[in-house]
């Protein structure tokens, strides 16, 4: 194709999954758990429709016009994120054996999975919506940008 300068863009994609969780910490007393987590401490758990928004960046490839091929990103997220968490009880997963499955922790877990495994573009951030009212963002340990 003809000479377009390589320019960096950010590509964001949103995915939906549903899972249940119970917020309960082994390090707290019953009263403290109740006071900290309220309704979310219900021993039977409860569920959400989560929306995960993954933002990757990189130079726009002159041959394809793309930061990365969506088929690669969708395939990776399906395999490594959605199939792991969709229609699961998060408390039963090995990922949450040691920590409370808050949406903060889930957001960090998803960031780490994509950061470690996805090689086709640079991960900028993961945004996780728990409900239409609550969302969380993680962009890695040190500040990017």
């Amino acid at each position: 194709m003809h000479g377009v300068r390589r320019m960096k863009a950010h590509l964001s994609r949103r995915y939906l999954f549903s899972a249940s969780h119970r917020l309960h910490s082994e390090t707290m007393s019953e009263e403290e758990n109740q006071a900290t987590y309220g309704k979310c401490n219900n021993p039977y758990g409860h569920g959400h429709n989560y929306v995960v928004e993954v933002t990757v960046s990189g130079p726009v490839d002159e041959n394809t016009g793309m930061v990365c091929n969506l088929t690669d990103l969708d395939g990776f997220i399906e395999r490594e994120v959605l199939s792991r968490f969709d229609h699961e009880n998060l408390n039963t997963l090995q990922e949450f054996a040691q920590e409370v499955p808050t949406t903060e922790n889930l957001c960090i877990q998803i960031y780490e999975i994509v950061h470690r495994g996805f090689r086709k573009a640079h991960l900028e951030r993961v945004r996780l919506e728990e409900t239409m009212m609550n969302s969380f963002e993680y962009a890695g340990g040190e500040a990017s940008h």
Partner: protein
Amino acid sequence: MVYLTRKAEFSASHYYHNPDFSPEENHRVFGKCNNPNGHGHNYTLEVTVKGEVDPRSGFVVDLKQLKEVMHREVLDAMDHRFLNKEVPEFLNRIPTTENIAIAVWQRLVTKLERAQLHRVRVYETPDLFVDFYGEA
């Protein structure tokens, strides 16, 4: 510094094809989007400008002017068009969401009067969007 975002919508058709690729390669890379008859989207455009608030007007930018520039430079050219055939940038560049965001940026960046262009965001669908912050 204050940021102001203005939205607009346009509908257009496009297809993805690189003449340097073989038919098989075009199909493998672009999948369904390679159909030469094109397909369409309702795009949502978000233009964010930044600047200091003018003490007299209380504005970062004259919204009327921003709206007018977006209409003249972008919507008049792209709304209800076949991007590959009717928009000069895409006669030999693939009209991906990435390249649309870059083209919108380039069309607007020199035309804004007071405020500075900060970000162009283009939604192809509610689940897919691209941000462009200018040439790094």
